[in-house]
């Protein structure tokens, strides 16, 4: 059938532009150049991130719900323990002030834990194949795009929680303290997003992913210092809380709320094994984040390839 004559189809336009000479020349200039380029990584990451923000702009309900939910937590949960005698929650003036740090971290954590879900749906739907057949500089661009998106949402949520806490009388950290809060939120979000995407590629489908999210979310909240101080807990739970990365995000934020003279050496947490300075908390968070990124590397390379 090699003799069939090309016939222009009724509903397809003229075939004048099947070949773009500029594009051909550009491609020829790329040939043999398998080198890794940061500019390529930025380009693909930015494009994936843009897609997520367009989705958000056209379907803003996740953002609206995501801002309202922690505020409801703050108000209702705060009111629940409003009449607890002063001094029971460490140095915090009232429970609302104590709770703010926990809600900030828990909200960022929850958002990042769910980061894998849209990617899982892309995978099930076949859209992810577009990324996988493309010559991406690195598949970490998928992780970074998700993390950038979730981080932006988390920062908006954090700002809303900080604002409402201030209105409820918890005050605000000093500017440098605010910067520390944002840094902690970002590091936590990057690490947890990486883990969530790792699960997305390791698990068979969204049902399993939702199940894992479900059994991870609240237990990690209750075994951290988000809702009560560590010295409130029974001994065994103190150990669990001391191994929970969320604790290392919550305590520095709580500390800078109360102490404008904070430094990296300030002891912010008293674990059963030793006192932990703020700088070490940051180190633990960075280590957790780095470990998560390294752990998912084989999944990115093999599961998707």
């Amino acid at each position, binding site marked *: *059938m090699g003799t069939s004559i090309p016939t222009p189809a009724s*509903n397809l336009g003229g075939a004048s532009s099947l070949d773009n000479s*500029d594009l051909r020349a550009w491609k020829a200039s790329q040939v043999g150049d398998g080198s890794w380029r940061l500019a390529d990584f930025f380009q693909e990451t930015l*494009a994936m991130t843009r897609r997520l923000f367009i989705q958000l702009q056209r379907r803003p309900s996740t953002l609206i719900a995501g801002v309202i939910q922690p505020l409801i937590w703050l108000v209702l949960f705060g009111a629940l323990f409003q009449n607890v005698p002063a001094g029971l929650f460490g140095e915090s003036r009232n429970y609302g002030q104590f709770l703010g740090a926990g809600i900030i971290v828990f909200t960022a954590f929850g958002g990042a834990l769910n980061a894998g879900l849209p990617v899982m749906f892309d995978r099930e739907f076949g859209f992810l194949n577009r990324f996988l057949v493309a010559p991406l500089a690195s598949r970490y661009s998928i992780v970074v795009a998700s993390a950038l998106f979730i981080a932006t949402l988390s920062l908006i949520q954090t700002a809303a929680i900080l604002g409402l806490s201030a209105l409820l009388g918890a005050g605000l950290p000093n500017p440098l303290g605010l910067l520390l809060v944002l840094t902690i939120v970002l590091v936590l979000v990057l690490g947890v997003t990486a883990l969530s995407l790792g699960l997305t590629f390791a698990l068979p489908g969204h049902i399993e992913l939702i199940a894992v999210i479900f059994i991870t979310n609240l237990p990690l909240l209750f075994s951290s210092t988000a809702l009560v101080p560590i010295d409130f807990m029974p001994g065994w739970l103190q150990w669990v809380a001391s191994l929970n990365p969320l604790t290392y995000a919550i305590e520095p934020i709580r500390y800078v709320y109360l102490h404008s003279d904070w430094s990296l050496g300030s002891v912010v947490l008293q674990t059963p094994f030793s006192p932990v300075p703020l700088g070490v908390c940051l180190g633990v968070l960075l280590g957790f984040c780095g470990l998560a990124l390294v752990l998912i590397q084989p999944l990115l390379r093999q599961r998707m*390839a």
Partner: protein
Amino acid sequence: MVAAVTIEHLKKAYGSVQAVEDVSLTIPAGEIFGLLGPNGAGKTTTIRCLCTLATPDHGRLEVMGIPVLEQPRRVRQYLGYIAQEVALDKVLTGRELMALQADLYHLPKPIAQRRMEEMVSLLDLEEWADQKTGRYSGGIKKRLDLALGLLHQPEVLVLDEPTVGLDIESRSAVWSFLRQLRAAGTTVLITSHYLEEVDALADRVAIIDQGRVIASGRPTDLKDQLGGDLITLRLREFTTLAEAEQAQQQLRQLAVVQNVIINTAQGNSLNLVVERQVNALGTVQEAMAAAGLPVFGIAQSRPSLDDVYLAATGRTLMDAELAAVGQRDLKQEKKQAMKGG
């Protein structure tokens, strides 16, 4: 002949299912190549391996002379992949998806911008490009999918079942578009279980069955290899195997008859290959009468690709298709395909 794609002894299993047993292909540059076979024959797995979506268990693959397993990223620059099911983000517009695609292939902005406009006019998407893809009909979706796959001007375009689920008009539009692509020098690989599609489009074809290539070459050559015209003979509406075998014995003695196959899947009808341009019909009918065997129906035809398939496997594509439908666990396959690896 310059090979655009070379596949040598590809093997791939998903769990205990051997999806591809042994597939070797050479696709010349600038041609349309058809991978024909029933559902479940291993076509999709073969192209998933080619497009770096699955890792083969064994075998060597090359695209434009570049080894796929060793240099997947370079190979991806040369390949365009159009999946069987169109997967679009329904919240985004066609133009936004094209911009995303252009960035995934790292096209410089000015070139990407022009190329997008070219694709929009080439595929007649002016009316749709700025609408969310959620509003598109099946045909429009396929056109956008083609635009996305061609945006980076791939040397080799791979299409998995390009016209499944399309209406007749869209199907013929896709066919003529693929011919235009070939005329412009692009190598096109399609998989299909439609005989007519492969027969109409492909310069070369490989027929694949149960994970193996059972015949390959130009469609005309494959048909000519069968030797001559075909006669389908039915002794009765439902012929017994014994009677069919008896007729087979008789027919083999005839000089004009080159080959006789009993098609067990079609009620033990007899498929004969006969010399061209002789009154074979009459000869066969006389032989049956002489042997005291009935003739319920008899017809002569030029061989089709289906006959090539039948000669190699003893069943028609349609029968293989029907058999496969009963055996497959589609959910399980989708899961496996999604896992990749």
